């Protein structure tokens, strides 16, 4: 009954997690608000748009009760710009993740504040601070990174899963023919996979303490997780005795340094006298 998997999310679990992302939906039929375990769904009144989790949006789309509005970053122009950035401007690292969402404040016109806890529109910052846990910072999949208003030109964390799901089930809602978007996505997948492979080859002789992968996507992480973690763990186990001796030497040097320092002070005082 216990889970036999090694630590780290598998690709299926990442896909499950990605289905919790919010997307914008244009309903075709009225639907009342349903009381779900994760909160109430918004009331659907065509033609007003609403934000729903991806799994629910896909369910409605399959039953032809709604159309999904693809996020702005999936537009071919945006994808082309991202590909350009990945290949020409920054061939080493991945393209940066989307900036954290900010909203204008109702209470202080002209001021923008970081939207901390929610995908459900803005409310005043003071209420937020007093009534909620100030340490709760949102991150994927609870950030609004795939709704229609998300910024274009940035790939959110679950980009591959969401793009695949939307292309498969809502291909007719895309701003351009699905074939074009799919080919651009394939190019993007290729470029990033190549970067991932080259970053792992740089890990040969990995003796560093950490490795930053800013901007990597969820599925890419899941695919390479076993390899990367195995590599780092393997290097650590092989170098365990070398590391232990290095630490002992550093301890010795530090303790030896202390004695040496006292000795120098004494001799300086003597000299001064």
């Amino acid at each position, binding site marked *: 009954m216990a889970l036999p998997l090694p630590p780290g*999310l598998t690709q299926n679990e990442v896909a499950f997690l990605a289905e*919790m992302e919010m997307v914008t939906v244009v309903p075709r039929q009225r639907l009342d608000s349903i009381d779900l375990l994760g909160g109430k769904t918004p009331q659907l009144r065509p033609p007003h748009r609403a934000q729903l989790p991806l*799994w629910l949006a896909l369910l409605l789309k399959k039953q032809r009760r709604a159309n999904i509005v693809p996020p702005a970053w999936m537009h071919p122009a945006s994808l082309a710009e991202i590909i350009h950035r990945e290949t020409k401007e920054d061939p080493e690292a991945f393209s940066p993740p989307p900036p954290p969402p900010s909203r204008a404040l109702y209470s202080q016109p002209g001021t923008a504040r970081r939207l901390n806890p929610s995908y*459900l529109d803005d409310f005043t910052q003071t209420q937020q601070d007093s009534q909620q846990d100030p340490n709760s910072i949102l*991150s994927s999949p609870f950030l609004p990174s795939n709704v229609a208003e998300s910024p274009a030109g940035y790939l959110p964390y679950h980009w591959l899963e969401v793009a695949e799901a939307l292309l498969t089930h809502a291909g007719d809602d895309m701003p351009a023919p699905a074939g074009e978007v799919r080919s651009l996505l394939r190019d993007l997948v290729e470029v990033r996979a190549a970067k991932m492979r080259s970053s792992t080859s740089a890990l040969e002789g990995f003796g560093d303490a*950490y490795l930053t992968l800013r901007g990597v996507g969820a599925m890419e992480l899941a695919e390479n997780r076993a390899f990367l973690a195995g590599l780092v763990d393997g290097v*650590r186990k092989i*170098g365990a005795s070398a590391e232990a001796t290095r630490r002992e030497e550093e301890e010795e040097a530090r303790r030896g340094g202390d004695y040496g320092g006292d000795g120098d002070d004494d001799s300086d005082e003597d000299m001064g006298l």
Partner: protein
Amino acid sequence: MDIDDILREVDPVSYQIPQETRDLQDLTRAWVAERSTPELLPWPSNGLFERINDKIKRQIEKVEEMTGDMDPKTNFALIVIQTELERFKYLVRSFLRTRIAKIDKHLLHYISNDNLRTRMSQIEEAYARRHQLLLHNHYLNSFLGTFPPAMQNLNDTAGNISMIDSPDLDSAVFIRLLKDAEIECHGVDVDGVLTGKEGDIVILRWSDAKGLVEKGDAELV
């Protein structure tokens, strides 16, 4: 503008993220964290699981009621509720199974240490103790009984090596930084200090990342 948006702006006191959504986020974070670390994390405090269990039970009752009065209008709502219920149950089941797998791997380690024992829930602790008892008795009946009595214990710490397996606390984990932070990291050849910005995804040792994750400055990915 939606009437809801107007109401929200005018009366922010009564509007905040509902407890259910926050529970879902907490449950998801706890699930991802538990799936990613090599050691058992503390049982979520603030009554998260008791609330979720209650809600699931009530939702199952609601589904049974709704299936009774079949009406084309409520039919669709029923499908949605059932789908979401299955998703929730999957999260809860996967979370609990991961924890049981970790406990099973290092039974004595988690039972013998007082600090670690508090990380388990009461049911988990009872399960761990009984499992350990069964295993030990099975070993005694199979082969351990033939050893001299002094060698029949499973928690021998004589010599430099302890018999009790501990999880490897230096395994590599992937974290995402939620705030800008400076982390001291240990490596094989060098020890470094990582200046991370928010949104960075870093791979480092669990022993280095643990402090940040517990504080809430980083989350496991």
